[in-house]
């Protein structure tokens, strides 16, 4: 495996000096290694950032991108190697030291305090003080207003962060990072929770920062973003540095093969879909204040995609069908019979399964083993004399792990230690073990790497071809369009339309999703 990695990286690693003119680097990372108990997270990696450019950092989950960025931002200390800032070796013992040296990081997780105002959040720890060393709220307000205006973020500095949408909070995070006036800005998947419009807005902010000579390190999983804003792309795989290339010298395929170390001939498998009989029929489903008038049919062997922006009610429809938040109106017919589902355990009994949107929030049992995570939904069927039939369950789980290629040292392994892709596969296994007839997948590939994505697509296709009825909710248009037989598009709680595979194009779906019909 490593042999192939070095082989493919050799040509990529050499950047011809005549392509990019020599100029001083803002930041250089030289031969940095970092290990955690039991794993080598980074081995001997390189990186360099030029002023006034955007460097995209790519790699599958667990490739070491986030670890490296945490080293650069002073959160971790490297075991070996050196950081150089404008040519001078530096060492950051704390995140504060890195900040003071001019390196700011926007974290993947939002770190804002919901009960404080935008202004207070942005200036926390470095509040503007008046003569009496008291917080000068007036000045703080003015500074925030100036900052937000400069970034064209249309928010009131006094608004409580708790009242903002996730996307707005992300914009506040970005404003906060910019407010440090750092030379280097690290963005760790900043677009995972924001809409197209805000992505465009963010990109214009990045362009501004670039023109001011700042260096930006941009971690993302999204190909189109890389080609939209990155000047250079650095690729990591399994904790090793694979190479750095100019973005305009690459295309999607070459980038993917660099990331996974193999050619992904096709991400979305072709499926001959003999669509079967009607399984589920939803009529005028509604949830007060959230969504209304949702009707659709679902057949055996069919994949129905649900597209829409965040907050369009996609997830709520899934949760209403599954009984997490029971609907307040409308009807659900299963095999022609009306059903009433007011709790998930009723849904499971009737053959539904729901892979939830947010693994951490509503999927994983963080302290439990892979085995315990997988078996949780089928436990009632594996109880004899009051005891769990551990042997039978273990055999079933082992079998599922093999089929789904869940990579884990053992079933006893704590699930936290698995990569995102493997966690997701283990959760999918949890549901497949219940033998569902209707599988609802909410963002099944969020935050997992390309390799695992391809495997999940392959699995979903396989399940559909075996006659399972699948509903797939996704924010990633290529995914919805690539997988679905039909696509339902929602906008602010309304069903805007259902498109057949032949009429579903990116443009058409986006149009409906933004409320234009």
């Amino acid at each position: 495996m490593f042999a192939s990695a070095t082989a493919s990286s050799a040509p990529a690693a050499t950047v011809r000096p005549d392509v990019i003119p020599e100029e001083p680097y803002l930041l250089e990372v030289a031969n940095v290694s970092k290990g955690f108990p039991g794993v080598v997270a980074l081995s001997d990696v390189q990186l360099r950032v030029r002023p006034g450019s955007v460097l995209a950092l790519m790699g599958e989950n667990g490739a070491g991108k986030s670890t490296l960025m945490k080293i650069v931002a002073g959160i971790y200390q490297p075991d070996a190697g050196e950081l150089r800032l404008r040519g001078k070796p530096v060492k950051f013992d704390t995140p504060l030291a890195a900040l003071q040296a001019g390196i700011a990081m926007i974290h993947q997780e939002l770190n804002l305090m919901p009960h404080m105002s935008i202004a207070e959040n942005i200036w926390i720890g470095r509040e503007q003080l008046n003569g009496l060393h008291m917080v000068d709220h007036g000045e703080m307000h003015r500074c925030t207003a100036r900052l937000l205006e400069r970034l064209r973020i249309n928010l009131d500095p006094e608004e409580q962060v708790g009242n903002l949408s996730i996307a707005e909070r992300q914009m506040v995070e970005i404003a906060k990072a910019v407010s440090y006036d750092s030379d280097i800005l690290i963005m760790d998947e900043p677009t995972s929770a924001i809409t197209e419009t805000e992505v465009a807005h963010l990109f214009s902010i990045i362009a501004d920062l670039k023109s001011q000579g700042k260096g930006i390190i941009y971690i993302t999983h999204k190909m189109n973003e890389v080609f939209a804003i990155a000047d250079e792309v650095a690729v990591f795989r399994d904790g090793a540095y694979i190479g750095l290339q100019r973005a305009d010298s690459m295309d999607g395929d070459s980038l993917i093969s660099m990331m996974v170390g193999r050619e992904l001939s096709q991400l979305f498998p072709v499926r001959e879909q003999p669509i079967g009989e009607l399984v589920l029929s939803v009529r005028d489903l509604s949830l007060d204040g959230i969504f209304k008038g949702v009707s659709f049919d679902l057949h055996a062997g069919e994949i129905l995609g649900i597209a829409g922006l965040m907050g369009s009610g996609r997830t709520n429809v899934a949760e209403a069908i599954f009984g997490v938040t029971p609907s307040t109106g409308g009807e659900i017919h299963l095999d022609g019979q009306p059903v009433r589902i007011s709790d998930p355990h009723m849904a499971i009994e009737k053959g539904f399964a729901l892979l939830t949107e947010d693994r951490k929030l509503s999927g994983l049992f963080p302290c439990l083993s892979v085995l315990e995570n997988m078996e949780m939904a089928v436990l009632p069927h594996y109880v004899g004399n009051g005891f769990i039939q551990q042997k039978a369950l273990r055999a079933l789980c082992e079998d599922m792990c093999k089929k789904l290629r869940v990579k884990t040292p053992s079933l006893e392994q704590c699930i936290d230690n698995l990569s995102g892709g493997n966690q997701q596969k283990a959760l999918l296994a949890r549901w497949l073990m219940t033998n569902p007839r209707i599988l609802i997948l909410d963002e099944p590939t969020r935050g997992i790497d390309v390799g695992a994505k391809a495997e999940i697509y392959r699995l979903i296709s396989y399940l559909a071809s075996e006659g399972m009825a699948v509903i797939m909710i996704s924010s990633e248009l290529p995914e919805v369009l690539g997988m679905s037989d039909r696509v339902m598009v929602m906008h602010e709680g309304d069903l805007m339309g259902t498109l057949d595979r032949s009429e579903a194009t990116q443009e058409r779906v986006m149009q409906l999703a933004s409320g234009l019909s």
Partner: protein
Amino acid sequence: MNAILENKPAAAPARTRRRLPTELSIFLVLIGIGLVFEVFGWIMRDQSFLMNSQRLVLMILQVSIIGLLAIGVTQVIITTGIDLSSGSVLALSAMIAASLAQTSDFTRAVFPSLTDLPVWIPVVAGLGVGLLAGAINGSIIAITGIPPFIATLGMMVSARGLARYYTEGQPVSMLSDSYTAIGHGAMPVIIFLVVAVIFHIALRYTKYGKYTYAIGGNMQAARTSGINVKRHLVIVYSIAGLLAGLAGVVASARAATGQAGMGMSYELDAIAAAVIGGTSLAGGVGRITGTVIGALILGVMASGFTFVGVDAYIQDIIKGLIIVVAVVIDQYRNKRKLKR
């Protein structure tokens, strides 16, 4: 592709690595504390601390009552809850059970017409009172969604009040021999150990246990996995109440009296035993074996301090310190485990 083939199952080492250390390390702490007192014993009193069966029996007897409460509260804490009412429920159950266990040759019995009853009646009454109190705790928490801290705080105050009101604060004594036999000799220890084994097995090998850990690990995920979270919470709190009731029966049988002041602040000792034993207040983590050792640590310390003649007030100061240190160490260990 190779990476998939490289995935060789390594079940055995992972298992031992994960299972052993938590209990083993607190067990070593227990042994260590015992040895420290042993050394002090020889230095200060010229006699052995450990080689004194009478003292050890007394210590384990004392541990049994707290231990019963701790087994219940461990399960509650695993679900991210807390039970502050166990000490008071113990007292209430002790009062009610004792009042039904009096002999007829006592002229001032609580219920003069209800004396010389068969022993199962007071026992069932005591257990029933505990179960009911626990069920009320659980129902309030599950239905209204108020924090367990508040719900059980309310029960703690009310149950204590009810225990006092029941006989206007008078102790209930002159209990039948068949009732006091429950607290005789090693009986409390046997009851404690049997209960510990039952719940150790229940937590590890039954649906009840898996669901308890699942709810503590991630309540929302538990619900989407088809677990009836509310019902399960009522069951867990009811079991904790039942065990407090059992502790009340055992305590009143052993003391041959029921008193409204029994079990004062035992709930805190029980929580401390669970926490010292590795149960995480953040939920999802905790084991009965750890709790039993935690209770033993508390017992050894109390017995040891008295043995070497440490002032009772200073004992409390040190006990408080040890509880905090135990949790700090535990948290530090968890952080290291997660920091990747």
